[in-house]
């Protein structure tokens, strides 16, 4: 894993950027008549799907962390490495 993955990411990200812009740019030219509210609300709902999936993941992780690693959790009885150093 280590080093090559980071290089891979540094290459992958610009590629994604290039691809998405080129693909959109060569799509059908602007000036076409569309129904504004349908396009805008469509984009909004797509955004909401993404926001709520990530939201569920992040809130799930936070809830797990808060519940699992709370002080009063019996599994947490032993003290972590950092403690006891005064």
């Amino acid at each position, binding site marked *: 894993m280590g080093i090559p993955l980071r290089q891979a990411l540094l290459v992958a990200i610009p590629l994604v950027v290039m691809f998405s812009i080129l693909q959109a740019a060569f799509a059908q030219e602007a000036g076409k008549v569309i129904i*504004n509210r349908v*396009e*805008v*609300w469509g*984009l*909004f709902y797509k*955004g*909401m799907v993404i*926001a709520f999936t*990530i*939201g569920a993941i*992040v*809130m799930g*992780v*936070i809830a797990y*962390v*808060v519940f699992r*690693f*709370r*002080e009063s959790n019996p599994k*947490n009885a032993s*003290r*972590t490495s*950092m*403690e*006891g*150093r*005064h």
Partner: protein
Amino acid sequence: MVLEVKKPRPMWEILFSTHHTDVGLLYIILSLVALMIGGALAIAIRTELFLPGNQGIIPDPNTFHRIMTTHGTNMLFLWLLPFASGMGNYLIPIMVRYKDMAWPKLNAVAFWMTPMGMALVWLGMADFTWYATPPYSILRAPGPAAEMWIFGIKILGIASILGAINFIVTILKMKHPDLPLMKTSLFVWATLMTSIMILVAIPTFAAALIMLFTDRLGVSGFFNPAMGGDPIAYQHLFWFTFHPEVYIFAIPAIGMAYELIPKFSRKPIFSYQSGVAAFIVLAIVGFTSWAHHMYATGMNFTEKTVFMVGTLSAVPASAMHVFNWIATMWGGRIKFATPMSFVVGGLVLFFYAGAGGVVNAQMPLDFLTHDSYWVVGHFHLFVMGLITFAFLGFLHYMFPFITGRMYNEKAGMVTFWLLFVGVSMIFLTQHVLGLYGQPRRVFDYIAVEPLIIMNQISTVGAWITAAGSALLIGNLIGSSIKGKPADMVDPFQIGQVYYDQTRKEPHH
């Protein structure tokens, strides 16, 4: 080890002191007063909007617009900034192991300009919203109130620039020689980055304020269309200052969260370097996205795209902070005392604010959300959710350090839950309210069933938050008077060192 070694000093000695802890204490007291009276205005606004029509709590639109403007200005410049510089004053000299700030007298001057600005803003109560957008602020905003606001904000701007210079020199120049910058706490990094952003951002608005004032006098026409000026120029100057400014409000709160989360998780920070990198990236990228506030002023397509890219580029930095905190809490033994509860509550609301921001950033969605209650909910999730929660958490954590006494833990937790539920009710509902098309800054709304219900939920949330704030102030004042003395070595029993410097050079 009791803090107050010598005979307690007379009041005036604290008021006119230049020592960083005294100036820090004065900043915190002023900011808490501002929080309470500004909050009272917010409760008046929300109660007025409980029902459509005029409930008589705020008699007429003029008074409503004046209250709304003062609430906005007060909360941003008299609660957020002074509290951040107050806590900075308290801790930075200790964290860089220097006896005081670089220029103690300048520190006191910067503080004493703040109540002057506060008086000007409050005694006038202008009505042109805290944007002061021309041409309304030039051609229509009445009274000495408008000029008083302009000079009040001018003074507050200069005060924050002086404070920023003081912090930068203290951190970079007065740091203990054998303490490398990469070993100082992340709160030091947060304050350093905030101060550098202040130096770059505030002067633009200082200029815009003078132009606005001379336009009002009629001697110039920078933003006055009748004299050939362009009101959009003002909006560029305003937002070039104020979008970075919203990061200036947020970064100290993030720094304070970095102070608390490792201590209460009894675990070191997941990645110090990632925190520093995120601060530096945010400080730079913060300046590339100001005109997403102006999508609706008729910008052309390419210009909007540039600022959308600038806005989206600021999201990874905040995402790294969220990752850092969760990763720090992972595997810890977390003690959910009041400070930690506030910071984790702030983290949750920070995520919702960020998610909403990604929606705002998209150009087409601006047609839905611009100047609507979605935006009100969005930025309040930042200023009331992340920032005020982190500040209150840090205030509870610093309570024993400042007063030597311990606050009432149960009251603290009840305050947290009241504020968390209240804030969530108000501002998450306001997102949907905005999508239903209710504009921002309205004295009244159309008496249509969905709008009424959401306004009522929002107002009930405001009352819950008000109860939480009252309990907060009661707890702070009551415990300062008769709280039991705190164990200065480890006041929260988290098995970690509190500010050990307090034992070597106690002050107060």
